């Protein structure tokens, strides 16, 4: 093939040359070119190598179905691989390189595979590479994994960058009445009718320019007139935007390529934009694709579809060859043959059908096209860089007899047309084979979806326009707009019927014909699949990889299905078709993720004291989506020395901890008490106003869901706290119970987590600290404000607050809550007083140390498989009332005495430590599932050694005077431990009451 640019014509701008490189070689083209058209005009031929046999690949199409010219664009971290050259717009400085070849696509050592191709047939890898050849000796996977390394390197296509993608992407949302997909004759007509009816219309086109097949026409008037009307009517007209998928409820996924065609884009622009468009009605005018057919070496460079040659000629001003053999089986190719001839090529048209209509013949003659009826291409012969001649044959029943050789540099094929049923298939609509037009036709959908134009199997240009009007008038009517009805034209529209042609065979001759040129699926592969019983269309696909290449079967599927039908001796519908899945064409993962990446992957939650904590030396840690102070190191302190100091201080004087991340829920209404009584295991009916109570919630299945405290502020007014981890889940749960189950209760729940900020004031000097903060010190008296008491009062400076005397640390402690905006002020008030008492700030690490010493449970202990008894809180399950989970918590396995129960753990040798996650085993059996596990570990400043919490079969009573082994093979060795009560400090709780 020696394509060249013609002097005039085409939509390119010859006054604007563009320089770029192909495999390092300088090339040039014009504005309006695709990389394919520019390189074709430069006379290049080979642009890729096939997947398996590494056979040379040239340009096979002019669109998204391209299966040959697949290359890499760009460099470094902006390298895009597997780009279809036919869809990439040219820009100044574009860097194009070949892929899947070494050293280059023109000379590729991988082509050795081609000489082995008789062994490398469909599915051969399932039969070997298991063991040592030739008889697969051996066991296990070791040998396979050696082969796999080589196979993986040989497979794959482009070599993508390992660097982070430097570009950014956007998500956008849209709503419309009518979405028209495709802007060819039918799409433009549909958009016109819908817009004239006053509907909000989106016209979406994947190409850079609107017009679809009109872009391959030599005249431009129809297209420009329609577009200007649409623009006047306020239609949203999008280009470079692919409707990649249709989803439920008229939702379409759109990918808009914003900067991929620019050499330097405004950095503020996203590279691509992913639109979620919700349309009341969708009109699919997405066109059809011309098929090729299989013959000997039909994959060699210089074989392309007829429509492609027309597009290159009329859109890009490139004549794809000088000596062209055009082989067709339908009416669509005649005008192209004439146009190519008029542009200066010598054209021989082979029509597989036995007769050519007289009028057509006259036209062909007039254009100087040599034509032969009843002939087609049997085999292509490739020269140094592409096709050099073809062997042609004469029809002989369903087979062919080779006749003579024709020299040529381009073979243009038309094996018929396939309506693009991909998008409607996304909706679960199964297309139906139509023998008269030899293609799969879309059928009506129960959803507001209409096909128009050649996507509906309508070939004739005027009928396509009519079908667009018709589809839109139906849509308008269903949306309540008055329009004139237009009858949907019949499908088809050629003068003489198509002669189905999928594979050209000559009796007694073996040719290598390709069905799927990208994946090297040959006609013989289809027959092999049949021979081995892979006859279902899905088995065919999976066994041969037909249709799994980057074109997803746009090129080869129908030929493959037809050949399987032939092998089975049945009709094509009996074989069926595979399901097309989104996306219609591949879309970048970056666009789908939009802005929610990196630091913005998930929301970041900070407490209103976040900055205050940072200023005062906090190191933060993740707690779900929250950032919480982890520890407050002083000077050279490490995390260990810091938390030990903080915990020690909390037990000796006073310490402050930001506890804002706890969930907070206002529970209000006349039945609030009854509600709490049903959701908590322990009684709430008699909780007096001004008191708080620790409560445990179970799930329906009787396992522990969450714990927290609930404060009674008034007769029908409660304030509940939940764990940080379960705040959202508890809120949803309470709402579900009230709205779906317990319609008898008059209760309202409101999340107030954001409204209140909280700080724990813990330690023997906590009361003294607060005494200096409150406006009325009288409220702090032990008598009026005992353990588990609640007050609402005012702090100095007029800060209103609510305080509960509750303790997670086991010390005398308070939780003080203020409206969020007051919280830095609260800290500014508390902190100097705390400092004056040698107090400190503490973070989650010290919080953990304090609670482990006390045997208080958190998420590590309440892992969703724990009963209230397991957690050592059985006494909190009231025997006198029913509550959520009470029915199922008594199932036999949940009441077994040998269940793992919460225990304290300490090393026998106090110099030793262990880790959370270690397994507890009996001394004589350090193997198997073990007897328990460790959930939390800390150094206890008070006890002077390491301690842990965990679970062990039967609890600490069962392990009295017995040793256990904490074994931790993934980190360190075994440690002998003693199992003790989980309440390791102040078990009577005297400090809290003090």
């Amino acid at each position, binding site marked *: 093939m020696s394509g060249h640019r013609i002097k005039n014509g085409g939509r390119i701008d010859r006054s604007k040359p563009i320089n770029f490189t192909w495999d390092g070689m300088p090339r040039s083209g014009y504005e309006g070119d695709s990389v394919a058209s520019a390189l074709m005009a430069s006379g290049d031929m080979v642009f890729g190598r096939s997947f398996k046999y590494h056979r040379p690949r040239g340009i096979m199409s002019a669109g998204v179905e391209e299966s040959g010219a697949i290359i890499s664009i760009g460099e470094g971290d902006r390298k895009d691989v597997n780009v279809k050259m036919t869809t990439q717009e040219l820009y100044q400085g574009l860097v194009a390189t070949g892929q899947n070849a070494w050293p280059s696509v023109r000379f590729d050592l991988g082509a050795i595979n081609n000489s082995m191709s008789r062994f490398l047939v469909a599915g051969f890898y399932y039969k070997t590479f298991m063991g040592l050849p030739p008889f697969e000796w051996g066991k296990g996977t070791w040998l396979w994994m050696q082969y796999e390394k080589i196979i993986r390197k040989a497979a794959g296509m482009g070599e993508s960058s390992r660097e982070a993608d430097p570009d950014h992407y956007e998500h956008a949302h849209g709503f419309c009445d009518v979405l028209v997909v495709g802007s060819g004759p039918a799409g433009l007509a549909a958009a016109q009718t819908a817009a004239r009816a006053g509907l909000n219309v989106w016209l979406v086109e994947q190409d850079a320019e609107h017009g679809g097949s009109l872009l391959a026409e030599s005249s431009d008037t129809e297209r420009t007139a329609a577009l200007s009307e649409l623009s006047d009517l306020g239609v949203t007209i999008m280009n470079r935007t692919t409707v990649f998928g249709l*989803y*439920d*409820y*008229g*939702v379409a996924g759109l990918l808009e390529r914003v900067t991929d065609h620019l050499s330097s884009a405004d950095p503020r622009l996203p590279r691509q934009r992913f639109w*979620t468009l*919700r349309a009341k009605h969708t009109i699919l005018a997405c066109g059809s694709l011309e098929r090729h057919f299989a013959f000997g070496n039909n994959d060699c460079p210089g074989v392309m579809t007829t429509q492609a040659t027309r597009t290159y000629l009329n859109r890009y001003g490139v004549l794809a060859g000088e000596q062209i053999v055009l082989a067709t089986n339908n009416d669509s190719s005649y005008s192209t043959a004439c146009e190519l001839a008029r542009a200066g090529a010598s054209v021989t048209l082979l029509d597989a059908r036995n007769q050519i209509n007289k009028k057509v013949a006259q036209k062909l003659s007039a254009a100087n096209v040599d034509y032969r009826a009843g002939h087609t291409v049997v085999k292509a012969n490739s020269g140094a860089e592409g096709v050099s001649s073809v062997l042609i044959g004469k029809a002989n029943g369903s087979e062919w007899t080779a006749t003579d050789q024709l020299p040529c540099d381009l073979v243009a094929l038309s094996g018929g047309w396939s309506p693009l049923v991909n998008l409607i298939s996304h909706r*679960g609509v199964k297309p139906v084979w139509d023998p008269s037009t030899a293609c799969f036709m879309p059928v009506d959908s129960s959803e507001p979806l209409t096909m128009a134009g050649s996507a509906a199997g309508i070939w004739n240009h005027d009928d396509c326009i009519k079908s667009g009007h018709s589809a839109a008038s139906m849509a308008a009517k269903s949306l309540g707009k008055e329009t004139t009805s237009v009858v949907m034209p019949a499908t088809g529209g050629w003068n003489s019927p198509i002669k189905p042609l999928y594979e050209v065979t000559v009796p007694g001759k073996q040719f290598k014909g390709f069905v799927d040129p990208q994946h090297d699926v040959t006609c013989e592969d289809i027959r092999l699949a049949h021979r081995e019983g892979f006859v279902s269309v899905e088995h065919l696909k999976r066994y041969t990889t037909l249709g799994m290449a980057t074109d997803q079967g746009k090129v080869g599927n129908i030929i493959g299905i037809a050949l399987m039908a032939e092998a089975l001796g049945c009709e094509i519908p009996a074989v069926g078709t595979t399901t097309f899945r989104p996306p219609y064409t591949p879309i970048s993962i970056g666009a789908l993720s939009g802005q929610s990446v990196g630091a913005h992957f998930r929301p970041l939650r900070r407490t209103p004291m976040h900055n205050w904590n940072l200023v005062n030396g906090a190191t933060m840690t993740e707690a779900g989506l929250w950032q919480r102070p982890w520890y407050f190191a002083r000077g050279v302190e490490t995390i260990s020395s810091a938390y030990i100091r903080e915990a020690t201080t909390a037990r000796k004087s006073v310490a402050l901890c930001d506890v804002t991340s706890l969930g907070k829920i206002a529970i209000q209404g006349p039945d609030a008490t009854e509600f709490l009584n*049903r959701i908590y295991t322990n009684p709430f009916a008699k909780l007096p106003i001004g008191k708080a109570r620790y409560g445990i919630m179970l799930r*329906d*299945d009787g396992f522990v869901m969450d714990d927290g405290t609930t404060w009674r502020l008034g007769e029908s007014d409660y304030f509940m706290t939940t764990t940080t981890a379960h705040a959202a889940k508890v809120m*949803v749960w309470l*709402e*579900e119970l*009230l*709205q*779906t*189950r317990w*319609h008898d209760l008059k209760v309202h729940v409101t999340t107030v987590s954001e409204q209140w900020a909280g700080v724990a004031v813990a330690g023997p000097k906590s009361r003294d600290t607060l005494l200096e903060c409150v406006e009325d010190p009288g409220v702090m008296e032990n008598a009026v404000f005992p353990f588990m008491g609640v007050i609402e009062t005012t702090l100095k400076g007029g800060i209103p607050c609510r305080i509960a005397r509750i303790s997670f640390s086991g010390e005398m402690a308070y939780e003080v809550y203020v409206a969020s905006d007051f919280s830095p002020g609260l800290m500014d008030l508390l902190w100097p007083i705390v400092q004056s008492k040698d107090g400190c700030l503490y973070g989650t690490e010290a919080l953990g140390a304090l609670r482990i010493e006390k045997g208080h449970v958190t998420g590590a202990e309440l892992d969703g498989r724990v009963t209230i008894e397991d957690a050592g809180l059985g006494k909190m399950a009231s025997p006198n009332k*029913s*509550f*959520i989970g*009470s*029915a*199922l918590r*008594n*199932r036999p396995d949940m009441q077994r005495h040998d269940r793992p129960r919460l225990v304290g753990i300490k090393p026998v040798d106090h110099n030793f430590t262990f880790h959370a996650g270690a397994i507890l085993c009996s001394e004589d059996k350090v193997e198997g599932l073990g007897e328990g596990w460790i959930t939390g570990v800390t150094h206890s400043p008070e006890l002077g050694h390491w301690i842990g919490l965990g679970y062990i079969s039967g609890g600490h009573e069962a392990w009295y005077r017995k040793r256990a082994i904490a074994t931790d093979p993934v980190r360190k060795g075994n440690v002998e431990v003693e199992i003790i009560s989980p309440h390791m400090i102040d078990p009577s709780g005297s400090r809290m009451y003090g």
Partner: protein
Amino acid sequence: MIRINCPFCGERDHSEFGYGGDASIQYPALDAPAKDWIEAVFQRENIAGVQQETWQHTSGCRMWIVVERNTITHEIHSVKPAHPGTKTLLANAGDHQ
């Protein structure tokens, strides 16, 4: 994307909602025998077709709703508030408009 017509907020993407579960389940009284609870908590009719199910408009009004939806096609036939009391409220709100 399923579009759910929230009785309180109007039609919204399903991603604003949280899926609850089978709305036909009648949860027994809290003091009912374990057998009844096992049936309600663990057994599912798992309808392939039109089922009543609960959703919550978590990113909207936080209301729980009962949706009649086809589990094969995702087509929604009806949507109503889960709490019968809110139905009355909605009706009254309609009167005032």
